């Protein structure tokens, strides 16, 4: 076990528990629980947004991809940024003006039909469960690798902490944990990039020259590699990355934590600035890793492969440039990253169950805030418990497809319905329900018949549906069916809000 990493991680956990204690004292209403009483500033929320997107995959995965294939790392790394224009230009203002606690509130503000809320809540829960399991399994594996803690113990630790943050601290604790982690992640990335630049006397060209000299592919690392396999696959992946984030419930919920629409816009802007900066820093870190680690026997095994696998590149680089302290800090930041993300997902799921299903659909005749808060807390514990159990069951399975599924559903079903409800007054409730449901089913079928499940999980030789992401078919299906059903008309029409 890396003692430095363990101490830094223990300090982070202690700090987050102090934050949770303070948050618990402040929490008096359901608004405090779901949206931190809308008292988070635009800057703070922007940092929390950046934290949601700068995940362990963004740091370790992208650095590993740069090391392995050069420029492909940039194509992959842009994925964290490219969904933000849609969030800023199309959704930030509008969501804050229309919404209260959840995404379903926004849809219901335009389409007052219980079916819309049922569709929205169902789609949200499916997205959140699949996203959560993939995150927790990845967390367990990563912590096992980084801190030497057994998978089961690491998963239980993640589960207990995330449930504690949500149950006692609600959105206030979840947001501040995310802010703390984002600040740590950005700080460590800046330090690492600075150390790379210092090593090369701040001569950026020499980083690339040495990387080309040392990498087996030579000048090939400055060209696109095999990440994009064809036009259809590239378009489908592009649509998923462009519009998937705009359909993720735990991301959209953050827009309700700020007091005004202008602050919601500002938070998206701040997130873009931080994530944009991160994209630049990762270029330096990625190519710096090629130049500094390639051929170094300290970080390679007998076969010449990176010790611990390709995802360890950023951590080995930290060790090479900053010694054990920086390595420990980066390892602790990685664990903190996962904790913060799963806490946000748990909160969004709890809000969906307690606010969208229990309070609005089952007890629409009214119940006290206290009851709703109790249901939220129970929902957080149950949701967290189920996800932990499923993660322990799936620990030996390849669950990457679950996060693919979450993004594909968000881009294929949730985003089109949301955007049509905001921009097309003629959308009917039935249009939204049928469109969204068809998108959901097409995304599911496409995913099962695609390479992620049909080949990787079920073991068939060739996929029936050729692309990993079904968005290229599922997203247009949602738009077309929603438009067609709305045109057929005769059912509850979209409420015009003047």
């Amino acid at each position, binding site marked *: 076990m890396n003692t430095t990493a363990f101490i830094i991680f223990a300090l982070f956990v202690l700090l987050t528990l102090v934050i949770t204690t303070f948050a618990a004292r402040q929490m008096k209403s359901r608004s405090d629980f779901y949206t931190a009483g809308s008292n988070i500033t635009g800057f703070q929320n922007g940092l929390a947004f950046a934290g949601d997107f700068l995940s362990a995959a963004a740091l370790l995965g992208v650095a590993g991809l740069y090391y392995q294939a050069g420029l492909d790392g940039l194509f992959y790394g842009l994925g964290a940024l490219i969904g933000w224009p849609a969030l800023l230009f199309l959704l930030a203002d509008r969501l804050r003006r229309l919404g*209260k606690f959840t995404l379903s509130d926004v849809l219901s503000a335009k389409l007052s039909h219980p079916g819309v809320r049922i569709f929205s809540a169902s789609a949200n829960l499916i997205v959140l469960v699949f996203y959560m399991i993939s995150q927790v399994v990845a967390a367990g594996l990563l912590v096992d690798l980084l801190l030497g803690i057994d998978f089961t113990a690491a998963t239980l630790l993640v589960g207990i902490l995330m449930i504690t943050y949500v149950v006692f601290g609600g959105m206030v604790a979840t947001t501040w944990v995310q802010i703390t982690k984002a600040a740590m992640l950005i700080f460590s990335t800046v330090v690492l990039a600075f150390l790379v630049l210092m090593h090369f006397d701040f001569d950026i060209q020499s980083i690339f020259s040495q990387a080309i000299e040392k990498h087996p592919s030579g000048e090939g690392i400055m*060209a*696109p590699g095999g990440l994009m396999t064809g036009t259809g696959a590239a378009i489908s992946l592009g649509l998923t990355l462009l519009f998937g984030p705009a359909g993720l419930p735990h991301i959209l919920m953050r827009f309700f934590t700020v007091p005004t629409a202008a602050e919601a816009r500002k938070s998206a802007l701040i997130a873009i600035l931080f994530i944009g900066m991160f*994209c630049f820093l990762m270029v330096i870190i990625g190519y710096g890793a090629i130049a500094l680690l390639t051929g170094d026997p300290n970080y390679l095994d007998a076969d010449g492969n990176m010790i611990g696998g390709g995802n360890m590149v950023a951590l080995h680089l930290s060790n090479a440039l900053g010694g054990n302290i920086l390595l420990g800090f980066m390892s602790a930041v990685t664990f903190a990253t996962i904790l913060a993300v799963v806490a946000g997902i748990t909160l969004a799921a709890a809000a969906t169950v307690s606010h969208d299903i229990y309070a609005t659909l089952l007890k629409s005749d009214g119940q006290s805030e206290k009851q709703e808060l109790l249901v939220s807390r129970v929902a957080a514990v149950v949701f967290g418990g189920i996800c932990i159990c499923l993660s322990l069951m799936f620990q030996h399975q390849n669950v990457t497809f679950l996060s693919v599924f979450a993004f594909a559903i968000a881009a294929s079903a949730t985003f089109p319905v949301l955007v049509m409800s905001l921009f097309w007054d003629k959308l009917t409730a039935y249009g939204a329900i049928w469109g969204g449901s068809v998108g959901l089913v097409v995304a599911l079928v496409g995913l099962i018949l695609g390479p992620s499940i049909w080949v990787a999980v079920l073991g068939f030789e060739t996929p029936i549906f050729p692309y990993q992401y079904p968005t290229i078919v599922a997203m247009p299906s949602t738009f077309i069916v929603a438009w067609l059903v709305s045109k057929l008309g005769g059912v509850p029409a979209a409420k015009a809000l003047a």
Partner: protein
Amino acid sequence: MSDNNLPKEQPPESTRLDILATLAIAVLYMAYTLSAIWAPDWLASPVFAGGPISLGLVLGLLLVVVIVISALAYDGLRRRQEKAAALKSDLEGGAK
């Protein structure tokens, strides 16, 4: 504190701008991504003869810059629109 009492709809000119800005970024990103399949050699060509930095790297980072600048410009424009609307509203209120 909430602004949920404010008008729920964006002004039409803002809606057009929002959609156009999103589409413009989407088209740029798709063009960059597809050029990796259709013209990988073009992306691999060096920006300066003999230099290590490729056109693909520069265009990718340029896309990041475009997104950041468009976000800053958009926010600035919307703030001006909101200030002008607030001023107009104050003037109309004063006239009444």
